[in-house]
């Protein structure tokens, strides 16, 4: 059952998102209105810890538990990075949820999460269909 570890890590991740209220539309509004440090503190400290961890992994050439060299791929630039980013930002402020929180909301029993996830799937599918015609 090689995927069990991902299920466990995902569960922990979902608990953290839920207990820190990142999954709340109210928290996202508070963030975009610059009225609390909460979300900035979470994102900022997550990036800082991740950054130090990745530097340590690189410096000591740590291997995964399967003995593989850790692979970190570079993200490629395209105009979609900022156009798509802007569109996602509009959706993030409307729904108050990015994809992770949508899944957590589903688990917390919020009916709207079903609609949000179906709509996000429709968006991803539409992007897949239009991909060649987009800049």
């Amino acid at each position, binding site marked *: 059952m090689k995927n069990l570890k*991902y*299920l466990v890590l*995902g*569960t*922990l991740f*979902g608990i*953290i998102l*839920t*207990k*820190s*209220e990142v999954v*709340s*539309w*109210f928290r*996202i509004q*508070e963030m*975009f*209105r610059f*009225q*609390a440090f909460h979300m*900035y*503190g979470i*994102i900022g*400290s*997550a990036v800082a810890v*991740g950054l130090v*961890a*990745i530097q340590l992994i690189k410096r000591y050439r740590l291997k995964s*538990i*399967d003995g593989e060299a850790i692979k*970190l791929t570079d*993200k*490629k*630039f395209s105009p*979609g*990075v*900022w156009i*798509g*980013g*802007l*569109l*996602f*930002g*509009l*959706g993030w*402020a409307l729904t108050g949820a990015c*994809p*992770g929180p949508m*899944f957590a*909301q*589903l688990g917390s029993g*919020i009916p*709207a999460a079903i*609609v949000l996830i179906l*709509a*996000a799937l429709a*968006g991803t599918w539409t*992007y897949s*269909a239009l*991909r060649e015609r987009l800049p």
Partner: protein
Amino acid sequence: MLDFFRQPWPWYVAGPLIGLTVPALLLLGNKTLGISSSLRHICAACVPAGLPFLRYDWRAQAWNLWFALGIVLGGFVGYRVLGHPATVAISPATVHDLRTQLHLTDFTGLLPRELFALDNLANWRGWVFMGLGGFLVGFGTRYAGGCTSGHAISGLANLQWVSLVAVVGFFAGGLLMTWLIYPLLLG
């Protein structure tokens, strides 16, 4: 101790734990944190429709779907098992703005019922906030090549300048919606 787990967690507990997910996934499975890809895998598994972008071995990326399923379970444990306060303790200034500018009155739960209760689908509100909003999240994240986890957390942590561009885009879109479009929709 148990009380700590029941209360909402402060940023300095949640943020570092989210950050530790990045090395945990790398060391345990050589995987890069990113959640929006799971939406693509679900599309590829369920409705590929012969589209080139959806024709790949999604089963090879199954770990991502297990991680997403875990988040669903985590939402259940975090909200239903560990419990939650009736209202999210947002700043009084935000409550004031939402009351006076967007005319919201019900602050219970994680999402305002006045916008996200399913019966809103009988009018434009539900279709804009849930339908269009969700669509933009799915479309935008794939177009941008990542979401808050893939770009803002693991991308920035790996010093990817592309991710910085994406995050600036996320915030520009969010600010545009909050400050210019929300007043038009609900003002």
